């Protein structure tokens, strides 16, 4: 019950609650107070418009429409509730039938329900109204039965969900009869969503009832509900519009109130609603890069493909901006393969997105320099620049399953960019797509080009993605975890393909990975990122033997090799990665570092070049670490921390 009160906290929920209660109160008191006013006949004053005496005018017997509308609340609400009860009870019978009757008969009931719910409620209501006859009683039954299939299906879904749970299975094993299990274990657990949906259903029943009465099939004179008043009022809408409007507004207000009350409760309780629309959690990510502007001549004399200085990426957070990338500088030469490694959350993927101009607002990218082939990417995107990016920069994303548009053929998806940027016509773009698919070793490319992504295997899709990057004349391929989502057996193929393309076409490669082995195998140089910064920059060949940063060494040590005892637990880096929203002062790695000293906690080590082209950010770079036998790197860290205090 307490959770139900949460409804009152939203303005909509509060309004709906107040209105619903108001309608219910009116339903109780209105007939007691105003029946006489509503039934008073005044033949001298028939079909009059609104006046001080009759706020909504009078009907053809001179009766006051306003009071009649108020008094009609009871009958309207009663009938709607009665119909809802019927719908819920019949729905429960239908919905639990598969559970009680067993598989075969249950399936028949289910199939019938599925056919019935395909028909709109008003049609079912008309059908039943014919069977049950014109009048209030017939209409209650008709609307009740018309609503039953929807409740039946809801119940059936809920019951199926609960009955697969452990405690129900346990009750079965214990030999508890099915009916008993249903009442003791299953129904109590599904009552909440049922009640919520019944509330919404009551609103719908109210509206449907008004509909049937409006058609003249529901309440008959001399009784009257809102629909009946509306039916009587519409005939004289030119004489006294208020006679139709007053009951119309009453129906609307009451229907809306019940409906919104139910929806608010559902939202508050996190209960699904029949035919409802799922709410979306807001995503912290973003769209359309909106960096500053101006085109530059590209193709400078150097062979630098990518030049990045002081790159920062920031997102608005609840307490000021969050900076997952905090000042990253590096460059990539023609034909060079650069690896970026780090744990998830280290900022490596965002770095890749930022250099490809794919960070979306509200994310912000700042840099002292961000040049691709001499063109400044910080400026507003122009057509020429889009062409440059579209043809010279190829992206390969992590999950090839979701990175292709499922509704379009592969060939077309590959050809699209070429048609756009290179001005190729449909046929030649497709021909090039087929050719590129062949280049990435997809067999029968002509046939494959006509297929949809779901007809490709994972590895084949990733190769197609690489092929898509080769549609232009790429100078740089940015591959973000290209093998992570793939089957182990095809990972190597994809890596080999990247390496082969790089060698053959002299393309630079930026390979993002959490896996040092992958990076070490494919790349010339490796950047190690931690908490949004580069902590070490070294030749890939030196990774295993002469890495100097404790974090890099921990990453390398975590890789199982020939000597690893396969029965021992896999070595992991102890501690948790830094939360970008809460980066500690000093060295970000200090909390997990076996070499950390008081200085590390206080002062941040700068990234310094050592003269041999390597860079490292650590106060104790290269100092020996006394590895525990079990591979744990902790030990000294704790000792130091004690000393530091």
């Amino acid at each position, binding site marked *: 019950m307490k959770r139900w009160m949460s409804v009152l906290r939203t303005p909509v929920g509060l309004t709906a609650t107040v209105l619903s209660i108001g309608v219910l109160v009116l339903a109780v008191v209105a007939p007691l107070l105003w029946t006489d006013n509503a039934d008073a006949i005044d033949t001298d004053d028939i079909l009059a418009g609104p006046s001080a005496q009759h706020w909504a005018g009078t009907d053809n017997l001179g009766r006051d429409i306003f009071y009649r509308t108020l008094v009609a609340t009871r009958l309207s609400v009663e009938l709607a509730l009665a119909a809802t009860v019927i719908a819920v009870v019949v729905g429960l019978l239908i919905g639990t039938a598969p559970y009680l009757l067993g598989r075969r008969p249950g399936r028949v009931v289910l199939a*019938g329900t599925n056919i019935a719910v395909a028909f709109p409620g008003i049609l079912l209501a008309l059908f039943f109204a014919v069977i049950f006859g014109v009048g209030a009683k017939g209409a209650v039954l008709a609307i009740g039965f018309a609503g039953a299939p929807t409740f039946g299906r809801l119940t059936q879904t809920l019951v199926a969900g609960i009955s697969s749970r452990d405690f129900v299975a346990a009750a079965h094993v214990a030999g508890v009869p099915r009916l008993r299990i249903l009442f003791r274990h299953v129904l109590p657990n599904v009552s909440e969503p049922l009640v919520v949906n019944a509330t919404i259903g009551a609103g719908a029943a109210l509206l449907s009832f008004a*509909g049937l009465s409006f058609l003249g*099939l529901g309440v008959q004179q001399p009784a009257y509900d809102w629909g009946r008043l*509306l039916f009587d009022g519409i005939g004289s*809408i030119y004489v006294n519009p208020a006679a139709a409007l007053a009951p119309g507004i009453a129906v609307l207000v009451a229907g809306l109130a019940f409906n919104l009350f139910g929806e608010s409760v559902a939202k508050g309780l996190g209960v699904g609603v029949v035919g409802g*629309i799922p709410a979306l959690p807001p995503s912290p*990510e*973003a769209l359309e890069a909106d960096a500053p502007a101006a085109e530059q001549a590209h193709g400078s004399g150097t062979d630098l493909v990518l030049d990045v200085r002081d790159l920062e990426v920031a997102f608005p957070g609840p307490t000021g901006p969050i900076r997952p990338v905090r000042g990253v500088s590096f460059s990539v030469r023609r034909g060079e393969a650069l690896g970026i490694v780090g744990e998830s959350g280290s900022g490596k993927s965002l770095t890749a997105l930022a250099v490809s101009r794919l960070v979306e607002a509200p994310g912000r990218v700042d840099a002292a320099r961000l040049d691709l082939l001499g063109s400044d990417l910080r400026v507003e995107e122009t057509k020429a620049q889009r062409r440059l990016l579209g043809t010279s920069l190829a992206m390969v994303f992590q999950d090839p399953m979701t990175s292709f548009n499922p509704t379009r053929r592969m060939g077309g998806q590959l050809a699209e960019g070429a048609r*756009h940027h290179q001005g190729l016509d449909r046929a030649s773009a497709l021909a090039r797509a087929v050719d590129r698919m062949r280049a990435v070793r997809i067999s029968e490319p002509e046939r494959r080009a006509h297929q949809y992504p779901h007809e490709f295997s994972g590895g084949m899709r990733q190769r197609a993605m690489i092929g898509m990057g080769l549609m232009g004349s790429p100078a740089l391929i940015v591959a973000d975890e290209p093998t992570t989502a793939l089957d182990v057996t095809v990972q190597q193929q994809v890596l080999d393909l990247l390496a082969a393309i790089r060698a053959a076409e002299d393309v630079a490669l930026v390979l993002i990975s959490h896996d040092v082995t992958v990076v070490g195998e494919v790349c010339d140089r490796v950047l190690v990122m931690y908490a949004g910064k580069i902590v070490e920059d070294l030749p890939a060949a030196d990774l295993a033997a002469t890495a100097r940063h404790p974090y890099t060494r921990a990453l390398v040590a975590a890789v199982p090799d020939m000597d690893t005892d396969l029965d021992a637990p896999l070595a992991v880096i102890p501690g948790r990665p830094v939360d970008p929203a809460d980066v500690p002062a000093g060295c970000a790695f200090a909390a997990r570092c076996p070499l950390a000293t008081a200085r590390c906690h206080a002062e941040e080590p700068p990234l310094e070049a050592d003269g041999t082209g390597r860079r490292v950010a650590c106060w104790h770079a290269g100092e020996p670490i006394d590895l525990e036998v079990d591979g744990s790197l902790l030990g000294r860290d704790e000792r130091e921390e004690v000393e530091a205090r």
Partner: protein
Amino acid sequence: MALASSVATSPRVGVWSHPWVRFGVRRLGRLLVSLWVLVTASFLMIHLIPGDPVRAALGPTAPAALVAAKREEMGLDDPLLAQYWHYLQSLFTGDLGTSITLQLPVSQVIAQRLPATLALAFLAFAVAVAIAVPLGVTMGVRTRRGHGRRTELAFTGTSVVLGIIPDFLLGVLLVYVFAVTLGWLPVAGNDSPSAYVLPVLALAVGPAAILARIIRVEMVTVLQADFVRTARAKRLPARTVHLGHALPNALTASLTLGGLILTSMVAGTVLVENVFAWPGLGSMIVSSILNKDYQVVQAIVLVYGVGVLLVNTLVDVALALLDPRSMIRED
């Protein structure tokens, strides 16, 4: 293309392995089963009415001989199964019986009334889609990733309220504003093009609001998808990314729910026609129920039911065209 390939790889199974063929067969099967249920239900309807339907139609004062003759003519005294068989046979020959009150073949009554209802439904359908798709897409793009919170709240609030207002009440309100108060548009009938405006609006606004809301939500979801990022990585213009890549996927997701809304428009004509005295099936069925002219009611129920089933089938076909995976998912 794909047909040739599956035949080539599995020659023995032949065309049956082709996804479109399998989809067609399965979908047709479902349509036929639903049709059978519908026809049986409409047959049973007359027999479930308590009392004698003929007596009810002719009134308590009608001579017993007339009632008996009418019963005889309708075969109501035959065994139930024989009647059922007879009913199915006459359906195939297009014989829907005779209207007791109008003294006309029911098929003729339907033929007279159907065009007006179809015109209303199609127009409302077109208007609803024409409003909902651009509106939903624009809103989706503008409110993606937590942008435009205010716009989103205003839009969602308005569309929720518009979506809940039942079509006949909206009709009454429209009549009040545009016919009674402003006098711009006629209140009833379908004699002039301007007479279409209010009924079509009454029928289309609610579904359009709900559909637009669904499309917005789906657009926002789809715009976060990886393949949209891929499209952006190809540096396609925003319009191509939104309309060419995101929209088809948003539509496939919207269609499943949207189909229900579109079928509800078929039935919505019943109430709206009665607001505007529209000379279609909807006003006919109500007067027939009140006159206890059950043969006409039975036939109109059947027509509406078939309409709903056809819309459902079309939605599934549209879904399959937009997203070929949906054919397989059904397996």
